[in-house]
Structure formats: structure tokens, C-alpha cells
């Protein structure tokens, strides 16, 4: 049984990363409810294995646990697909994961910014998971290459090539998408 000191240490080092954990889970599972399940499961597991964690910066560590929980959950899901997959709800989420759009004064610029933002989110969601996770960890969580390598359990060189490849894919999709909407240059 973990003693009180360990629990207090967990509370101080791991609990504050809940938003980062949820955001990562959201992008990996692409579903808010599943993201919650994954984070819950990850925290349970993290608490159980907290004894193996050394150091003060627990963020990469807990993000790694969350990442694995997400893939386990998706794996289980594939094995037994949910009975009521709601295309509508999932499709809607692709565009607006509950974030606030700030409107610049120029309505046209605002429309372009919004369109671009939606496209970025849509194409990022559509990327294969290995590129998506590298990009999200880099751009959203601001992780270093070394941290990404730790979280995704891959060599440093692979981090570099996945980020580069992911960005090229996204760039191509975005260029095509913006053109299609008539908001490109």
C-alpha cells in the first residue's frame, strides 16, 4: 500500500497535468468520452506504478502512460466495436472540439482564420496516429524531441522524421483544402 507521502507526491507532481493529459487523450482517441476513460485509466495505472517514477518533472511520464492507455482503449474498441457509433456526433467533433474562436475585427479575415483553423483540426485528426501524436506533443504540449521520444517510446531520429513527415502531409492537405474553399492565395 502506498504511504501518505507517496500519495502527496503523486498529488503534487502528477495531478496538475490533468489538462495536458486530457488534451493528448482527446487528440489520440478523437472522442471526448473515450478521452475521459483513457485519462481515468491512465491515472489509476500511474498511481499504481508511481513507485517506479523518479525525479520531479512527471509530465512526460504521465503523458506516456496516457498515450498507452489511449492505444489500449482503441485496441479494445477495435476488438469489440461499440454498438452505437454516432457518425453525426463524431463528425461534428472533427470541427469544433469546444474551443473558443477569437474574432478579429475584419469579418473576412475572421472567416478565413476560422476556416483555416477548422481545416487544421480536421486534417490533424485525419493523420495516422504516429504523426498525429508527434505533432500534438510538439505543438500543443511544447515537448522537446527528447520528451517525445520518451513518451512515444521511439528513438530521437524517429521523432525528427515523424514530425517532418507529419508536417509535409498536413501542409499538402491544407493547401488543397484552403484552395477548395476559395480562401487560398
Amino acid at each position: 500500500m502506498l504511504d501518505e507521502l507517496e500519495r502527496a507526491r503523486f498529488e503534487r507532481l502528477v495531478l496538475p497535468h490533468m489538462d495536458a493529459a486530457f488534451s493528448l487523450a482527446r487528440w489520440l482517441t478523437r472522442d471526448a468520452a473515450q478521452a475521459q476513460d483513457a485519462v481515468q485509466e491512465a491515472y489509476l495505472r500511474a498511481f499504481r506504478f508511481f513507485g517506479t517514477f523518479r525525479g520531479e518533472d512527471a509530465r512526460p511520464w504521465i503523458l506516456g502512460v496516457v498515450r498507452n492507455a489511449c492505444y489500449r482503449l482503441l485496441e479494445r474498441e477495435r476488438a469489440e466495436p461499440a454498438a452505437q457509433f454516432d457518425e453525426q456526433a463524431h463528425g461534428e467533433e472533427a470541427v469544433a472540439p469546444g474551443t473558443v474562436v477569437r474574432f478579429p475585427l475584419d469579418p473576412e479575415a475572421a472567416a478565413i482564420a476560422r476556416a483555416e483553423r477548422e481545416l487544421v483540426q480536421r486534417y490533424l485528426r485525419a493523420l495516422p496516429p504516429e504523426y498525429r501524436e508527434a505533432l500534438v506533443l510538439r505543438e500543443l504540449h511544447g515537448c522537446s524531441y527528447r520528451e517525445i521520444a520518451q513518451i512515444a517510446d521511439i528513438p530521437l531520429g524517429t521523432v525528427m522524421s515523424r514530425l517532418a513527415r507529419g508536417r509535409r502531409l498536413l501542409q499538402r492537405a491544407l493547401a488543397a483544402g484552403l484552395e477548395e474553399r476559395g480562401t487560398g492565395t
Partner: protein
Amino acid sequence: MSCKETTRLLDAYVDGELDLAAGLHLEEHLQSCAHCGASLARLKALRTSLRRGVELETAPDGLRSRLRARFSAPARGPGLSRGWGLALAAPGIAALALALWLGFAVPEARVVYHITSSATASTALRNLANHLQAAPKVKIVVVAHNDGVDFLLRGARDASGEAFEPAVRRFLERGVEFRVCNNTLERRGINASRVIPAAALVPSGIAEIGRLQSQEGYSYMRL
């Protein structure tokens, strides 16, 4: 440095992950090569779009409070600490741990009642009372939609002639929330001022139910 080499290292350069010497070589090449300079500009633009497109999200309240209840210091109920001991006693069995977890979540379960017909409103309120009695900590939101909005209009009475409003107010005091679908009001030409003050308006009843389920962890009950 060649264009090929530059292309290979450009991402690491933009990410500030290139060592100083390689960085200097790359900058030297960029100054003399318009092609690679344009690649750099595109890459930087993509990063700006990406950072605008993905933002850190706040963990939903339900998840936050569950995790806090689990791992924060304040005194916990007897059920919780007992359950925790059980979870620890079964290492490696994630499914069991999860089941226990779900068990704990029961005191703060969230349920959305969907009322779509005025005929079932009385039954729904009776179920509501029973539900609260059996699970006093349950959080219930009632979403009224289609003909189900009628009992939340001023002066509405049940089949035996009793007014709904006082009952609704009593539920409100116990933490139950009532939400009325504005689409329904518009479609049926009902002025929003006819809705009793105890009930709130939401743009779409269906969207509200979807939101409660997908984002706030509510389970759904149709009445």
C-alpha cells in the same frame, strides 16, 4: 550544406533542436538558396496555423472532480478508502480497477432525463423523486423537447388539476435543472416568456443532450 541536407534538418532547426554548428551551416545555406528559404517560410506558417488550431483543453469538470476525489488529500468517505484498498489488492487487473472506479462514481452519477411528451411529465417527475430518494447525490438535468415542454409553461397543470410549477421549483431546490428546447418553442410558436422562470432555455434540446452525454459524462434516460 546541400538542399537535401537542409530539407532533412529544417524541422529540427525550426523546433530549436539543431546543435549550434549545424544551425549555422543551415542558415548559411538558407541565405543563398531561395528554394529552401521558401520551404522555411512555409514551415513557419504551418506552425503558426497548427498552434492556432490546437489549444490546450481543460479537463471536463466530472473527470477533474473524480481524479481529485481519488488522489487529493482531503478526507474521503469510508466507501472510497475501502474501494481503494480493493483496487490495490488486485494489481494488474485494469478492468477490475476500472469497474471499482465506476462504482465509486455512483455518488456523483449524472443523468439527463429527456421528456418528449406532456403525457409522461407526471410520470417523469415521480421517477425523478424516486431517483433522488434512492441516490441523493445524483445530478439530474431534465431536457424538455417537443410536446414535453408543456409542463414547464406557466399555469401548466397535470391530469388531476395540480399545478406543475411548485413541484418543479422543489426539484430545482434539490439541484435538478430543467432545460427547454428553444427550437421547439419556435416551431410551435410558443413565446419564450411563457416558460416558467425555474426552467432555462437551450438553443436545441437534442444538441444539449448530445453535449451532456459526450462532454459532461451524463447517461441518458428517455421518459
